[in-house]
């Protein structure tokens, strides 16, 4: 490579004048932590991840103070509502009895009598050829010949009864009603009439008052539009508020995700430094014990321990999970710390400190642990996502926290059952797990680059 310094003149070799400045450091000396922080700050991915982690903690801790909805409370008016669903309802008079006599048309069509609302759908139809009696179906999909018509609602006795009032579990959505004629022996005839019906949500004034939408019934004349409770992220299959459940689930998932690694790494540090520092027989014995724990298949024994600890009535099952995680996970970090300590025991500065009369506890606390702290912090950061994964996995197979305590994993478990109809019920918890794990992984990468020169990845 050609360089401008290749050609030197005599001037270049002339000694520089001695100044005071040359003997002082230009930059202030940085401590290890200042240097690490400077490195981390220059890594945009790590800083964004740090921001996400902090906002997740705020979401879990401050969120429930702002959004004070009980995560176990069921809103039976809004079950499996996606976010942003229409939550307005029109106030209507209480449902009056229906006298359909003489209202049925003469032509073979299916028609509505009155408006279709969530109070009642009143159907009338004309005579179908050859029909002795009629059967009424309701379906989510348009009726087609040769296909099933959906849920049979009723079989009406007699040729003359050509009216039906549906009041079964009505929701504000579109349904396809189908009426099929039956012959004298009850076999379905080929002819049918069908009608798509979109139901309008209505509510009586008394119900609206009972739900706290107004103080007095007099304030709600028929035709007034009222709004149901707001669920920013929708509701789940029991009508529980998803945002509140995500916040409380974040508490569970993050509590386990942060506390379990903190605890087991703490145990690992004590255990590993003891083994590494004492050495000899004690070290052999301690490490052999750790080897056995490592040999246990992790997730299988998580399940086994969860069963063994049991969950009493009214308990959430968070503590058994924490204990099981700690019991099974400590050896890896103890091995790591032991290795570091063994390596460091031979270092010159440890010998120097010992020469100066440093005691063993002082050596461990002042020289060895601070030097392993970087590695420990990086291990901790990478342990968080795996703990969150473990919690989610256990809750997903039904061995995690007990209902009604929400966790992101159990929310996914509930959401996956109606994934096609109500995707929002699985998308949100899955997204939270993924973003959390992603953030901790990227933060871990950043911390590794910042804290530990030996482990620095070659980017």
């Amino acid at each position, binding site marked *: 490579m050609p360089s401008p310094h290749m050609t030197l003149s005599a001037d270049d070799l002339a000694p520089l004048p001695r100044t005071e400045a040359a003997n002082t450091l230009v930059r202030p000396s940085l401590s290890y932590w200042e240097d690490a922080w400077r490195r981390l700050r220059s890594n945009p991915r790590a800083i964004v991840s740090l921001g996400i982690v902090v906002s997740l903690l705020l979401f879990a801790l401050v969120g429930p103070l702002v959004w004070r909805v009980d995560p176990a409370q069921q809103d039976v008016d809004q079950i499996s509502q996606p976010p942003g669903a229409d939550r307005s309802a029109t106030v209507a008079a209480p449902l009056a009895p229906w006298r359909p006599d003489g209202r049925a048309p003469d032509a073979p069509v299916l028609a509505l009598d009155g408006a279709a609302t969530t109070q009642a759908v009143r159907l009338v139809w004309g005579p179908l050829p050859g029909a002795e009696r009629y059967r009424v179906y309701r379906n989510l999909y348009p009726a087609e010949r040769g296909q099933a018509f959906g849920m049979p609602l009723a079989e009406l006795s007699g040729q003359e009864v050509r009216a039906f009032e549906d009041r079964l579990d009505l929701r504000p959505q579109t349904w396809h009603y189908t009426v099929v004629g039956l012959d004298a022996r009850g076999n379905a005839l080929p002819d049918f009439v069908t009608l798509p019906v979109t139901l309008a949500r209505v509510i009586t004034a008394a119900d609206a008052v009972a739900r706290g939408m107004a103080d007095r019934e007099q304030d709600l004349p028929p035709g007034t539009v009222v709004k149901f409770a707001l669920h920013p992220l929708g509701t789940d299959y029991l009508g529980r508020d998803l945002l509140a459940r995500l916040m409380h689930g974040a508490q569970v998932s993050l509590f386990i995700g942060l506390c379990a690694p903190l605890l087991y790494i703490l145990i690992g540090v004590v255990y590993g430094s003891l083994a590494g520092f004492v050495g000899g027989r004690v070290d052999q014995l301690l490490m052999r014990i750790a080897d056995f724990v490592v040999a246990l*298949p992790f997730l299988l*024994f998580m399940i*086994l321990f969860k*069963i*063994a600890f049991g969950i009493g009535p009214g308990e959430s099952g968070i503590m058994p999970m924490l204990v099981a995680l700690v019991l099974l996970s400590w050896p890896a970090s103890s091995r790591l710390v032991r290795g570091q300590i063994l390596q460091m025991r031979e270092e010159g500065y440890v010998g120097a400190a010992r020469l100066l009369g440093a005691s063993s506890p002082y050596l461990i606390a002042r020289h060895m642990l601070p030097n392993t702290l970087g590695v420990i912090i990086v291990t901790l950061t990478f342990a968080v996502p795996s703990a969150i994964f473990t919690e989610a*996995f256990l809750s997903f197979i039904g061995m995690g926290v007990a209902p009604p305590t929400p966790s992101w994993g159990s929310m996914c478990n509930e959401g996956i059952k109606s994934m096609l109809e109500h995707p929002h019920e699985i998308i949100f918890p899955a997204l939270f797990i993924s973003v959390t794990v992603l953030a901790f992984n990227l933060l871990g990468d950043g911390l590794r680059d910042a804290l530990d020169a030996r482990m620095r990845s070659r980017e």
Partner: protein
Amino acid sequence: MTLWRYALRRLLQGIVTVWFIATATFLAMHAVPGDPLMSDKAVTPEIRANLEAKYGLDQPLHRQYLIYISNLARGDFGISFTQKNREVNDIIREHFPVSATLGILAIVIAGMGGVVWGALTALYRNRLPDTAIMFLVILAISVPGFVIAALGQLAIVGLNRVTGIPLLPVAGWGSVSHMLIPALVLGLGTMAYLTRLMRSSMLEVIATDYIRTARAKGIPATRIFTHHALRNAVLPVITVLGPAIAGITTGGFVVELVFAIPGLGRYFVQAVQQLDYTVIMGTTVFYGAFLVFMVIVVDLLYGIVDPRVRLE
């Protein structure tokens, strides 16, 4: 032969480990509150006593332990508590091949994919293919297995809807078309992990002296890649195959659950939910022994593949 001596020693160690797993399983299951006959119809004390005698539950703990261990040593895992007259051995014999087929397919997909993508990213280091693949990798590592499984199922539904014909079955087991997506889903996390590993290993190898020497000798780049770089870079991937198999085995629980595959994993989860004690103990010990054995096989394989590794 040192290899045989090494293999024998590892095998003996493995048997001790399996014994430890069996003991831990036994003790864990005996710490369970309540007892296996609680949900049963053993209403009268006489029936209860008979059942306890039948399952050996009236014996003191150390006797039960001895019976359990000696049965295990003879390869007898006992009888299911919830499905009468069904031996745990039968359950394993019937359902494990399904899990094994799925697992082998997944590990092949993960291994091949990991090596190919990892090598590719190392070759295109810091260029578009590298960035794109590594982005997908970090995404795959961060998404839990059951979400990937759900997405896989959604993809099948979408594919079938787009093509208008049922191209791939959404769930179930029986033909190759049933296996494809579940195996891919199962292997994806491991593949992402292996890709990362392969990339850093490849970057390390590319920087070595023998690659520079090979280049200096004028060997074509493709030959250097296939004969010098790839072969050496693959070695670390083999070392992590042991943990990868463990991951795929337990990951199989979720995938089998989501895709309704009649494998041992799904059966195990069901047994856990129904508290079928003998099935839980049997499958745990079986899985534990399987994983211990697989780690030994992988270590032996590593010694054979890489002659520089001294087995000790």
